[in-house]
Protein backbone atom coordinates (compact mmCIF):
# COMPACT_ATOMS: atom_id res chain seq x y z
CA UNK A 1 0.00 0.00 0.00
CA UNK A 2 1.04 3.55 -0.68
CA UNK A 3 0.58 5.73 2.38
CA UNK A 4 -1.47 8.93 2.01
CA UNK A 5 1.66 10.85 2.87
CA UNK A 6 3.66 9.43 -0.02
CA UNK A 7 0.68 10.06 -2.21
CA UNK A 8 0.44 13.73 -1.40
CA UNK A 9 4.20 14.09 -1.72
CA UNK A 10 3.91 12.51 -5.17
CA UNK A 11 1.10 14.86 -6.10
CA UNK A 12 3.18 17.84 -5.01
CA UNK A 13 6.09 16.58 -7.08
CA UNK A 14 3.73 16.16 -10.02
CA UNK A 15 2.41 19.71 -9.70
CA UNK A 16 5.90 21.17 -9.56
CA UNK A 17 7.04 19.18 -12.58
CA UNK A 18 3.79 20.12 -14.33
CA UNK A 19 4.53 23.82 -14.01
CA UNK A 20 8.11 23.22 -15.06
CA UNK A 21 6.95 21.41 -18.18
CA UNK A 22 4.51 24.19 -19.03
CA UNK A 23 7.11 26.95 -18.78
CA UNK A 24 8.57 26.87 -22.33
CA UNK A 25 5.13 26.70 -23.94
CA UNK A 26 3.86 29.55 -21.78
CA UNK A 27 6.89 31.68 -22.64
CA UNK A 28 6.55 31.07 -26.37
CA UNK A 29 2.78 31.54 -26.46
CA UNK A 30 2.99 34.63 -24.30
CA UNK A 31 5.90 36.36 -26.04
CA UNK A 32 5.15 35.39 -29.65
CA UNK A 33 1.37 34.91 -29.85
CA UNK A 34 -0.49 36.80 -27.14
CA UNK A 35 1.81 39.80 -26.75
CA UNK A 36 2.11 40.38 -30.54
CA UNK A 37 -1.65 40.14 -30.86
CA UNK A 38 -2.05 42.87 -28.23
CA UNK A 39 0.56 44.91 -30.09
CA UNK A 40 -1.34 44.38 -33.35
CA UNK A 41 -4.49 45.75 -31.75
CA UNK A 42 -2.49 48.73 -30.48
CA UNK A 43 -0.95 49.42 -33.93
CA UNK A 44 -4.36 49.12 -35.53
CA UNK A 45 -5.51 52.15 -33.52
CA UNK A 46 -2.52 54.24 -34.58
CA UNK A 47 -1.19 56.03 -37.58
CA UNK A 48 2.42 54.85 -37.77
CA UNK A 49 4.93 54.58 -40.62
CA UNK A 50 7.13 52.11 -38.71
CA UNK A 51 9.88 54.64 -37.97
CA UNK A 52 8.57 57.97 -36.68
CA UNK A 53 6.22 58.78 -33.86
CA UNK A 54 2.91 56.94 -33.72
CA UNK A 55 -0.30 58.94 -33.48
CA UNK A 56 -3.56 57.62 -32.03
CA UNK A 57 -6.35 57.68 -34.57
CA UNK A 58 -9.02 55.58 -32.90
CA UNK A 59 -10.98 53.39 -35.26
CA UNK A 60 -10.03 55.32 -38.40
CA UNK A 61 -8.01 52.39 -39.78
CA UNK A 62 -11.02 50.13 -39.41
CA UNK A 63 -13.54 52.46 -40.96
CA UNK A 64 -11.18 52.91 -43.89
CA UNK A 65 -11.25 49.18 -44.59
CA UNK A 66 -14.90 49.54 -45.48
CA UNK A 67 -14.69 52.88 -47.26
CA UNK A 68 -11.42 52.58 -49.19
CA UNK A 69 -12.14 50.79 -52.47
CA UNK A 70 -8.89 48.79 -52.54
CA UNK A 71 -9.28 47.45 -49.02
CA UNK A 72 -12.97 46.74 -49.40
CA UNK A 73 -12.22 45.16 -52.79
CA UNK A 74 -9.72 42.80 -51.16
CA UNK A 75 -12.44 41.57 -48.82
CA UNK A 76 -14.83 41.08 -51.74
CA UNK A 77 -12.13 39.09 -53.56
CA UNK A 78 -11.64 37.02 -50.43
CA UNK A 79 -15.35 36.24 -50.38
CA UNK A 80 -15.22 35.17 -54.04
CA UNK A 81 -12.12 33.06 -53.39
CA UNK A 82 -13.94 31.32 -50.54
CA UNK A 83 -16.17 29.76 -53.19
CA UNK A 84 -13.14 28.42 -55.05
CA UNK A 85 -11.16 27.40 -51.99
CA UNK A 86 -14.02 25.88 -50.09
CA UNK A 87 -17.39 25.33 -51.75
CA UNK A 88 -16.21 23.99 -55.11
CA UNK A 89 -13.65 21.52 -53.66
CA UNK A 90 -16.17 20.32 -51.05
CA UNK A 91 -18.88 19.86 -53.69
CA UNK A 92 -16.52 18.04 -56.07
CA UNK A 93 -15.14 15.82 -53.35
CA UNK A 94 -18.68 14.97 -52.22
CA UNK A 95 -19.25 13.65 -55.73
CA UNK A 96 -15.94 11.79 -55.64
CA UNK A 97 -16.48 10.08 -52.28
CA UNK A 98 -19.98 9.13 -53.38
CA UNK A 99 -18.73 7.57 -56.60
CA UNK A 100 -16.18 5.72 -54.56
CA UNK A 101 -18.76 4.42 -52.13
CA UNK A 102 -21.40 3.44 -54.68
CA UNK A 103 -19.08 1.61 -57.01
CA UNK A 104 -17.11 0.15 -54.07
CA UNK A 105 -14.09 1.15 -56.05
CA UNK A 106 -10.85 -0.58 -55.25
CA UNK A 107 -7.53 1.25 -55.10
CA UNK A 108 -8.93 3.84 -52.74
CA UNK A 109 -5.51 4.29 -51.16
CA UNK A 110 -4.14 5.27 -54.56
CA UNK A 111 -6.76 7.96 -55.16
CA UNK A 112 -6.33 9.34 -51.67
CA UNK A 113 -2.55 9.63 -52.04
CA UNK A 114 -2.84 11.28 -55.46
CA UNK A 115 -5.64 13.74 -54.65
CA UNK A 116 -3.88 14.92 -51.49
CA UNK A 117 -0.54 15.45 -53.24
CA UNK A 118 -1.07 19.16 -54.17
CA UNK A 119 -1.41 19.88 -50.43
CA UNK A 120 2.18 18.86 -49.78
CA UNK A 121 3.72 20.65 -52.76
CA UNK A 122 5.36 23.94 -51.73
CA UNK A 123 2.89 26.73 -52.59
CA UNK A 124 5.41 28.87 -54.46
CA UNK A 125 6.00 25.88 -56.74
CA UNK A 126 2.26 25.45 -57.29
CA UNK A 127 2.01 29.11 -58.24
CA UNK A 128 4.93 28.90 -60.66
CA UNK A 129 3.73 25.84 -62.54
CA UNK A 130 0.18 27.18 -62.80
CA UNK A 131 1.48 30.52 -64.10
CA UNK A 132 2.97 28.53 -66.94
CA UNK A 133 -0.12 26.42 -67.49
CA UNK A 134 -2.28 29.54 -67.62
CA UNK A 135 0.05 31.40 -70.01
CA UNK A 136 -1.58 32.90 -73.15
CA UNK A 137 0.01 30.27 -75.38
CA UNK A 138 2.58 27.46 -75.50
CA UNK A 139 2.87 23.67 -75.51
CA UNK A 140 0.84 21.93 -72.84
CA UNK A 141 -0.89 25.05 -71.52
CA UNK A 142 -4.57 25.20 -70.68
CA UNK A 143 -5.08 27.36 -73.76
CA UNK A 144 -3.36 24.78 -75.96
CA UNK A 145 -5.50 21.97 -74.52
CA UNK A 146 -8.76 23.79 -75.14
CA UNK A 147 -7.78 25.67 -78.28
CA UNK A 148 -8.29 29.07 -76.65
CA UNK A 149 -5.98 32.06 -76.33
CA UNK A 150 -6.95 33.82 -73.14
CA UNK A 151 -4.23 35.50 -71.05
CA UNK A 152 -5.91 34.13 -67.93
CA UNK A 153 -3.77 35.73 -65.23
CA UNK A 154 -3.31 38.99 -67.12
CA UNK A 155 -6.98 39.55 -67.81
CA UNK A 156 -9.06 41.88 -65.67
CA UNK A 157 -12.09 39.62 -65.88
CA UNK A 158 -10.37 36.20 -65.76
CA UNK A 159 -7.51 36.64 -63.29
CA UNK A 160 -9.55 36.08 -60.12
CA UNK A 161 -11.44 33.00 -61.34
CA UNK A 162 -8.19 31.65 -62.79
CA UNK A 163 -6.43 31.96 -59.43
CA UNK A 164 -9.56 30.48 -57.89
CA UNK A 165 -9.26 27.50 -60.19
CA UNK A 166 -5.75 26.87 -58.88
CA UNK A 167 -7.15 27.09 -55.35
CA UNK A 168 -9.81 24.51 -56.18
CA UNK A 169 -7.14 22.24 -57.64
CA UNK A 170 -5.17 22.67 -54.39
CA UNK A 171 -8.02 22.06 -51.94
CA UNK A 172 -9.90 19.27 -53.71
CA UNK A 173 -7.69 16.64 -52.10
CA UNK A 174 -7.95 18.26 -48.69
CA UNK A 175 -11.76 18.18 -48.83
CA UNK A 176 -11.70 14.65 -50.23
CA UNK A 177 -9.57 13.32 -47.41
CA UNK A 178 -11.75 15.09 -44.85
CA UNK A 179 -14.95 13.53 -46.22
CA UNK A 180 -13.73 10.02 -46.96
CA UNK A 181 -13.74 8.60 -43.40
CA UNK A 182 -17.23 10.02 -42.86
CA UNK A 183 -18.76 8.25 -45.81
CA UNK A 184 -17.02 5.03 -44.89
CA UNK A 185 -18.69 5.19 -41.48
CA UNK A 186 -22.19 5.07 -42.98
CA UNK A 187 -23.38 1.44 -42.81
CA UNK A 188 -24.01 0.07 -46.35
CA UNK A 189 -27.28 -1.50 -45.12
CA UNK A 190 -28.87 1.95 -44.95
CA UNK A 191 -28.23 2.44 -48.65
CA UNK A 192 -29.39 -1.08 -49.46
CA UNK A 193 -32.65 -0.42 -47.64
CA UNK A 194 -33.15 2.85 -49.52
CA UNK A 195 -32.54 1.09 -52.81
CA UNK A 196 -35.15 -1.53 -51.99
CA UNK A 197 -37.56 1.35 -51.40
CA UNK A 198 -36.71 2.54 -54.87
CA UNK A 199 -34.77 5.65 -53.93
CA UNK A 200 -32.94 7.19 -56.86
CA UNK A 201 -29.43 8.60 -56.90
CA UNK A 202 -30.52 12.08 -55.93
CA UNK A 203 -32.92 10.99 -53.18
CA UNK A 204 -30.30 8.68 -51.74
CA UNK A 205 -27.84 11.57 -51.69
CA UNK A 206 -30.23 14.08 -50.08
CA UNK A 207 -31.84 11.66 -47.61
CA UNK A 208 -28.83 9.66 -46.44
CA UNK A 209 -25.46 10.98 -47.50
CA UNK A 210 -25.99 14.67 -46.83
CA UNK A 211 -27.55 14.38 -43.35
CA UNK A 212 -25.13 11.70 -42.20
CA UNK A 213 -22.11 13.63 -43.40
CA UNK A 214 -23.31 16.93 -41.94
CA UNK A 215 -20.53 17.23 -39.41
CA UNK A 216 -17.84 16.12 -41.82
CA UNK A 217 -19.02 18.62 -44.42
CA UNK A 218 -18.98 21.38 -41.82
CA UNK A 219 -15.43 20.47 -40.84
CA UNK A 220 -14.35 20.35 -44.49
CA UNK A 221 -15.93 23.73 -45.24
CA UNK A 222 -14.31 25.29 -42.17
CA UNK A 223 -10.83 23.94 -42.81
CA UNK A 224 -10.81 24.79 -46.52
CA UNK A 225 -12.30 28.23 -45.84
CA UNK A 226 -9.59 29.01 -43.32
CA UNK A 227 -7.07 27.94 -45.99
CA UNK A 228 -8.59 30.63 -48.25
CA UNK A 229 -7.48 33.27 -45.79
CA UNK A 230 -3.92 32.07 -46.22
CA UNK A 231 -3.89 32.74 -49.94
CA UNK A 232 -0.97 35.18 -49.63
CA UNK A 233 1.72 32.94 -51.15
CA UNK A 234 -0.33 31.82 -54.14
CA UNK A 235 -1.51 35.34 -55.00
CA UNK A 236 1.86 37.01 -54.36
CA UNK A 237 3.62 34.60 -56.69
CA UNK A 238 0.95 34.17 -59.37
CA UNK A 239 -0.45 37.68 -59.88
CA UNK A 240 0.85 39.93 -57.09
CA UNK A 241 -2.69 41.24 -56.74
CA UNK A 242 -3.00 42.28 -60.37
CA UNK A 243 -3.89 43.16 -62.97
CA UNK A 244 -4.90 46.37 -61.24
CA UNK A 245 -6.32 45.20 -57.95
CA UNK A 246 -8.44 42.43 -59.42
CA UNK A 247 -6.79 39.65 -57.37
CA UNK A 248 -5.82 41.72 -54.33
CA UNK A 249 -6.47 39.86 -51.06
CA UNK A 250 -6.18 41.07 -47.44
CA UNK A 251 -2.97 39.08 -46.80
CA UNK A 252 -1.15 40.72 -49.70
CA UNK A 253 -2.48 44.14 -48.74
CA UNK A 254 -1.09 43.69 -45.22
CA UNK A 255 2.32 42.89 -46.65
CA UNK A 256 2.19 45.85 -49.01
CA UNK A 257 0.88 48.35 -46.46
CA UNK A 258 3.22 47.38 -43.64
CA UNK A 259 6.44 46.65 -45.48
CA UNK A 260 6.31 48.65 -48.68
CA UNK A 261 4.06 51.64 -48.06
CA UNK A 262 4.86 52.20 -44.37
CA UNK A 263 1.25 52.13 -43.23
CA UNK A 264 1.52 49.89 -40.18
CA UNK A 265 -1.85 50.94 -38.76
CA UNK A 266 -3.89 49.90 -41.81
CA UNK A 267 -2.00 46.62 -42.12
CA UNK A 268 -2.62 45.77 -38.47
CA UNK A 269 -6.31 46.65 -38.65
CA UNK A 270 -6.68 44.37 -41.66
CA UNK A 271 -4.86 41.62 -39.75
CA UNK A 272 -7.32 41.94 -36.87
CA UNK A 273 -10.23 41.82 -39.31
CA UNK A 274 -8.78 38.62 -40.81
CA UNK A 275 -8.54 37.12 -37.33
CA UNK A 276 -12.18 37.96 -36.68
CA UNK A 277 -13.14 36.37 -40.01
CA UNK A 278 -11.34 33.13 -39.03
CA UNK A 279 -13.29 32.96 -35.78
CA UNK A 280 -16.59 33.87 -37.44
CA UNK A 281 -16.12 31.12 -40.03
CA UNK A 282 -15.07 28.51 -37.47
CA UNK A 283 -17.83 29.15 -34.96
CA UNK A 284 -20.41 30.28 -37.51
CA UNK A 285 -20.34 27.06 -39.54
CA UNK A 286 -20.40 25.05 -36.35
CA UNK A 287 -23.40 26.77 -34.80
CA UNK A 288 -25.24 26.59 -38.12
CA UNK A 289 -24.76 22.84 -38.13
CA UNK A 290 -25.71 22.44 -34.47
CA UNK A 291 -28.88 24.46 -34.95
CA UNK A 292 -30.01 22.46 -37.97
CA UNK A 293 -29.32 19.26 -36.10
CA UNK A 294 -32.05 19.86 -33.53
Amino acid at each position, binding site marked *: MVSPRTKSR*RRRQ*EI*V*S*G*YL*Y*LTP*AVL*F*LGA*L*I*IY*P*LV*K*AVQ*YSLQDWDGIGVARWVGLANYTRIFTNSVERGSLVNLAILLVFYSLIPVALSLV*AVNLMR*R*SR*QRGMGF*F*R*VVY*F*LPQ*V*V*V*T*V*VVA*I*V*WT*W*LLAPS*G*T*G*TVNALFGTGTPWLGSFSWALPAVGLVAS*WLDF*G*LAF*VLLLPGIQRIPPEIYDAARVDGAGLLREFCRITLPMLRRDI*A*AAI*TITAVAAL*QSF*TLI*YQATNGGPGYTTMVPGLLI*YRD*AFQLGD*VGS*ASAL*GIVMTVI*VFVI*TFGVRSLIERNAT
Partner: protein
Amino acid sequence: MLSRTERTVSLAVLLLAAVVTLYPLVALVTTALAPAAGSGGLSFGGHPSASGFTFAWRVGDFSRYMLNTAIVTVTVVVVSAVFAIMAGYAIALARPPGAKWVLYAAVFGFMLPVEALIVPWYYQFRTFNVVNTYWAMILPQVAQSIAFGTFWMYVAFRSVPPSLAESARMDGASPFALLWRILVPNVAPAVKTMAALVFLWTWNAFLLPLVMISNSSLYTVTVGLSVFEGAHFNNYSALAAGSVLAALPVVIVYLFAQRSFIKGIFAGSLVE
Protein backbone atom coordinates in the same frame (compact mmCIF):
# COMPACT_ATOMS: atom_id res chain seq x y z
CA MET B 1 -26.16 -4.52 -57.56
CA LEU B 2 -24.53 -1.82 -59.54
CA SER B 3 -24.48 -1.97 -63.27
CA ARG B 4 -21.19 -2.48 -65.01
CA THR B 5 -21.64 0.82 -66.84
CA GLU B 6 -22.04 2.79 -63.66
CA ARG B 7 -18.94 1.23 -62.21
CA THR B 8 -16.94 2.04 -65.33
CA VAL B 9 -18.21 5.60 -65.46
CA SER B 10 -17.32 6.26 -61.82
CA LEU B 11 -13.87 4.83 -62.31
CA ALA B 12 -13.41 7.05 -65.37
CA VAL B 13 -14.46 10.15 -63.44
CA LEU B 14 -12.15 9.33 -60.53
CA LEU B 15 -9.27 8.68 -62.91
CA LEU B 16 -9.94 11.96 -64.71
CA ALA B 17 -9.67 13.78 -61.39
CA ALA B 18 -6.38 11.99 -60.75
CA VAL B 19 -5.06 13.05 -64.16
CA VAL B 20 -6.08 16.69 -63.57
CA THR B 21 -4.35 16.56 -60.18
CA LEU B 22 -1.16 15.03 -61.51
CA TYR B 23 -0.83 16.83 -64.84
CA PRO B 24 0.74 20.09 -63.51
CA LEU B 25 3.18 18.13 -61.37
CA VAL B 26 4.20 15.85 -64.23
CA ALA B 27 4.61 18.86 -66.53
CA LEU B 28 6.88 20.41 -63.91
CA VAL B 29 9.13 17.36 -63.70
CA THR B 30 9.40 16.88 -67.48
CA THR B 31 10.21 20.58 -67.91
CA ALA B 32 12.88 20.32 -65.21
CA LEU B 33 14.52 17.56 -67.24
CA ALA B 34 14.70 19.62 -70.44
CA PRO B 35 18.01 21.26 -71.43
CA ALA B 36 18.55 24.57 -69.61
CA ALA B 37 17.55 27.84 -71.25
CA GLY B 38 16.41 25.91 -74.30
CA SER B 39 12.95 26.35 -75.71
CA GLY B 40 11.12 28.52 -73.22
CA GLY B 41 7.83 27.03 -72.19
CA LEU B 42 6.73 23.73 -70.80
CA SER B 43 8.55 20.75 -72.18
CA PHE B 44 7.48 17.14 -72.54
CA GLY B 45 9.64 14.20 -73.52
CA GLY B 46 12.94 14.55 -75.33
CA HIS B 47 16.30 13.59 -73.94
CA PRO B 48 16.40 14.10 -70.19
CA SER B 49 19.09 16.51 -69.15
CA ALA B 50 20.34 17.52 -65.74
CA SER B 51 21.46 20.95 -66.87
CA GLY B 52 18.41 22.66 -65.36
CA PHE B 53 19.31 21.18 -62.01
CA THR B 54 23.00 22.12 -62.26
CA PHE B 55 22.05 25.67 -63.19
CA ALA B 56 19.64 25.98 -60.26
CA TRP B 57 22.07 24.35 -57.84
CA ARG B 58 25.14 26.42 -58.83
CA VAL B 59 23.98 29.69 -60.38
CA GLY B 60 20.66 29.86 -58.55
CA ASP B 61 22.36 29.10 -55.23
CA PHE B 62 19.77 26.44 -54.38
CA SER B 63 22.38 24.48 -52.46
CA ARG B 64 22.48 27.31 -49.94
CA TYR B 65 18.70 27.84 -49.86
CA MET B 66 18.11 24.15 -49.24
CA LEU B 67 20.64 24.14 -46.40
CA ASN B 68 19.07 27.24 -44.80
CA THR B 69 15.60 25.73 -45.01
CA ALA B 70 16.86 22.45 -43.56
CA ILE B 71 18.50 24.24 -40.61
CA VAL B 72 15.35 26.23 -39.84
CA THR B 73 12.97 23.32 -40.36
CA VAL B 74 14.86 20.73 -38.33
CA THR B 75 15.32 23.17 -35.44
CA VAL B 76 11.64 24.09 -35.44
CA VAL B 77 10.47 20.46 -35.61
CA VAL B 78 12.72 19.26 -32.77
CA VAL B 79 12.29 22.22 -30.41
CA SER B 80 8.54 22.56 -30.85
CA ALA B 81 8.00 18.80 -30.51
CA VAL B 82 9.87 18.65 -27.18
CA PHE B 83 8.06 21.69 -25.74
CA ALA B 84 4.65 20.61 -27.06
CA ILE B 85 5.07 17.10 -25.59
CA MET B 86 5.98 18.64 -22.24
CA ALA B 87 3.03 21.03 -22.25
CA GLY B 88 0.56 18.44 -23.55
CA TYR B 89 1.60 16.03 -20.80
CA ALA B 90 1.33 18.69 -18.11
CA ILE B 91 -2.18 19.69 -19.17
CA ALA B 92 -3.52 16.17 -19.73
CA LEU B 93 -1.88 14.21 -16.92
CA ALA B 94 0.08 16.26 -14.35
CA ARG B 95 -2.74 18.83 -14.27
CA PRO B 96 -1.32 21.57 -12.05
CA PRO B 97 -3.98 24.19 -11.19
CA GLY B 98 -4.54 26.62 -14.05
CA ALA B 99 -3.00 24.38 -16.73
CA LYS B 100 -6.20 24.46 -18.77
CA TRP B 101 -5.57 28.13 -19.54
CA VAL B 102 -2.46 27.19 -21.44
CA LEU B 103 -4.60 24.84 -23.53
CA TYR B 104 -7.05 27.64 -24.33
CA ALA B 105 -4.19 29.95 -25.27
CA ALA B 106 -2.72 27.24 -27.52
CA VAL B 107 -5.99 26.57 -29.37
CA PHE B 108 -6.49 30.31 -29.77
CA GLY B 109 -2.96 30.75 -31.06
CA PHE B 110 -3.38 27.87 -33.51
CA MET B 111 -6.31 29.68 -35.10
CA LEU B 112 -4.57 33.03 -35.56
CA PRO B 113 -3.49 33.72 -39.15
CA VAL B 114 0.20 34.53 -39.70
CA GLU B 115 -0.94 37.69 -41.49
CA ALA B 116 -2.27 39.07 -38.20
CA LEU B 117 1.01 38.49 -36.34
CA ILE B 118 3.62 39.24 -38.99
CA VAL B 119 3.57 43.01 -38.43
CA PRO B 120 4.17 42.95 -34.64
CA TRP B 121 6.69 40.12 -35.05
CA TYR B 122 8.71 42.21 -37.46
CA TYR B 123 8.82 45.29 -35.21
CA GLN B 124 9.47 43.18 -32.09
CA PHE B 125 12.42 41.55 -33.82
CA ARG B 126 13.72 44.81 -35.21
CA THR B 127 13.87 46.18 -31.67
CA PHE B 128 15.94 43.20 -30.53
CA ASN B 129 18.06 43.21 -33.68
CA VAL B 130 17.14 39.69 -34.74
CA VAL B 131 15.77 40.59 -38.16
CA ASN B 132 17.93 38.89 -40.82
CA THR B 133 18.90 35.92 -38.67
CA TYR B 134 17.77 32.31 -38.51
CA TRP B 135 16.10 33.17 -35.19
CA ALA B 136 13.67 35.51 -36.90
CA MET B 137 12.35 32.54 -38.86
CA ILE B 138 12.70 29.93 -36.13
CA LEU B 139 11.11 31.62 -33.10
CA PRO B 140 7.68 32.57 -34.57
CA GLN B 141 7.45 29.20 -36.29
CA VAL B 142 8.24 27.41 -33.01
CA ALA B 143 5.56 29.45 -31.23
CA GLN B 144 2.89 28.58 -33.81
CA SER B 145 3.95 24.94 -33.85
CA ILE B 146 3.78 24.81 -30.05
CA ALA B 147 0.26 26.25 -30.23
CA PHE B 148 -0.77 23.40 -32.51
CA GLY B 149 1.39 20.74 -30.83
CA THR B 150 0.28 21.46 -27.26
CA PHE B 151 -3.31 20.90 -28.24
CA TRP B 152 -2.44 17.88 -30.39
CA MET B 153 -0.36 16.21 -27.66
CA TYR B 154 -2.97 17.03 -25.02
CA VAL B 155 -5.51 15.05 -27.04
CA ALA B 156 -3.02 12.19 -27.45
CA PHE B 157 -2.04 12.00 -23.76
CA ARG B 158 -5.65 12.15 -22.66
CA SER B 159 -6.31 8.87 -24.47
CA VAL B 160 -3.53 7.05 -22.56
CA PRO B 161 -5.08 4.75 -19.94
CA PRO B 162 -4.44 6.19 -16.43
CA SER B 163 -3.43 2.74 -15.18
CA LEU B 164 -0.30 2.95 -17.32
CA ALA B 165 0.99 6.04 -15.56
CA GLU B 166 -0.17 4.69 -12.21
CA SER B 167 1.71 1.42 -12.44
CA ALA B 168 4.86 3.22 -13.60
CA ARG B 169 4.64 5.49 -10.58
CA MET B 170 4.23 2.45 -8.33
CA ASP B 171 7.47 1.13 -9.75
CA GLY B 172 9.06 4.36 -8.59
CA ALA B 173 9.54 6.03 -11.98
CA SER B 174 10.45 9.73 -11.74
CA PRO B 175 8.18 12.22 -13.56
CA PHE B 176 10.94 12.58 -16.15
CA ALA B 177 11.24 8.86 -16.80
CA LEU B 178 7.48 8.47 -16.75
CA LEU B 179 7.04 10.99 -19.55
CA TRP B 180 9.93 10.21 -21.87
CA ARG B 181 10.36 6.44 -21.34
CA ILE B 182 6.79 5.30 -20.85
CA LEU B 183 4.24 7.81 -22.10
CA VAL B 184 5.94 9.20 -25.21
CA PRO B 185 6.56 5.76 -26.79
CA ASN B 186 2.86 5.14 -26.18
CA VAL B 187 1.80 8.14 -28.23
CA ALA B 188 4.50 7.77 -30.90
CA PRO B 189 2.02 7.94 -33.83
CA ALA B 190 0.71 11.31 -32.61
CA VAL B 191 4.27 12.61 -32.25
CA LYS B 192 5.04 11.42 -35.78
CA THR B 193 1.99 13.20 -37.19
CA MET B 194 2.85 16.40 -35.35
CA ALA B 195 6.43 16.29 -36.63
CA ALA B 196 5.26 15.65 -40.21
CA LEU B 197 2.86 18.61 -40.17
CA VAL B 198 5.29 21.03 -38.54
CA PHE B 199 7.87 19.94 -41.10
CA LEU B 200 5.44 20.70 -43.94
CA TRP B 201 4.36 24.08 -42.53
CA THR B 202 7.89 25.25 -41.76
CA TRP B 203 9.37 24.11 -45.08
CA ASN B 204 6.48 25.77 -46.91
CA ALA B 205 6.59 29.04 -44.94
CA PHE B 206 6.83 32.04 -47.25
CA LEU B 207 5.50 35.25 -45.73
CA LEU B 208 7.67 34.93 -42.60
CA PRO B 209 11.07 34.53 -44.34
CA LEU B 210 10.01 37.03 -47.02
CA VAL B 211 9.47 39.69 -44.37
CA MET B 212 12.30 38.79 -42.00
CA ILE B 213 15.15 38.09 -44.40
CA SER B 214 16.69 40.53 -46.85
CA ASN B 215 20.17 39.00 -46.81
CA SER B 216 20.16 36.57 -49.75
CA SER B 217 22.62 34.20 -48.06
CA LEU B 218 19.89 33.44 -45.49
CA TYR B 219 17.02 32.91 -47.97
CA THR B 220 14.93 29.82 -47.50
CA VAL B 221 14.13 27.80 -50.59
CA THR B 222 10.63 29.31 -50.97
CA VAL B 223 11.89 32.90 -50.99
CA GLY B 224 14.97 31.90 -53.00
CA LEU B 225 12.75 30.30 -55.62
CA SER B 226 10.50 33.34 -55.81
CA VAL B 227 13.49 35.68 -56.26
CA PHE B 228 15.05 33.28 -58.78
CA GLU B 229 11.78 33.34 -60.72
CA GLY B 230 11.99 37.11 -60.91
CA ALA B 231 15.53 37.02 -62.31
CA HIS B 232 15.30 33.99 -64.63
CA PHE B 233 11.64 33.84 -65.58
CA ASN B 234 12.57 32.72 -69.10
CA ASN B 235 14.74 29.81 -68.04
CA TYR B 236 11.93 27.32 -67.68
CA SER B 237 14.01 24.22 -67.10
CA ALA B 238 16.17 25.79 -64.38
CA LEU B 239 13.08 27.24 -62.70
CA ALA B 240 11.29 23.91 -62.91
CA ALA B 241 14.38 22.17 -61.55
CA GLY B 242 14.54 24.62 -58.65
CA SER B 243 10.84 24.01 -58.04
CA VAL B 244 11.36 20.27 -57.97
CA LEU B 245 14.21 20.69 -55.48
CA ALA B 246 12.07 22.94 -53.28
CA ALA B 247 9.13 20.54 -53.32
CA LEU B 248 10.94 17.21 -53.15
CA PRO B 249 11.76 16.91 -49.42
CA VAL B 250 8.15 17.36 -48.32
CA VAL B 251 6.81 15.12 -51.08
CA ILE B 252 9.25 12.36 -50.08
CA VAL B 253 8.29 12.63 -46.41
CA TYR B 254 4.63 12.57 -47.48
CA LEU B 255 4.99 9.45 -49.59
CA PHE B 256 6.63 7.64 -46.69
CA ALA B 257 4.35 8.96 -43.97
CA GLN B 258 1.12 9.78 -45.80
CA ARG B 259 -1.03 8.29 -43.07
CA SER B 260 0.56 10.58 -40.52
CA PHE B 261 -0.04 13.62 -42.71
CA ILE B 262 -3.64 12.78 -43.38
CA LYS B 263 -4.40 12.06 -39.71
CA GLY B 264 -3.06 15.48 -38.82
CA ILE B 265 -5.38 17.49 -41.02
CA PHE B 266 -8.24 16.48 -38.76
CA ALA B 267 -6.71 18.64 -36.05
CA GLY B 268 -8.64 21.56 -37.49
CA SER B 269 -11.92 19.74 -37.01
CA LEU B 270 -10.99 18.73 -33.48
CA VAL B 271 -10.66 22.36 -32.48
CA GLU B 272 -14.30 22.92 -33.18
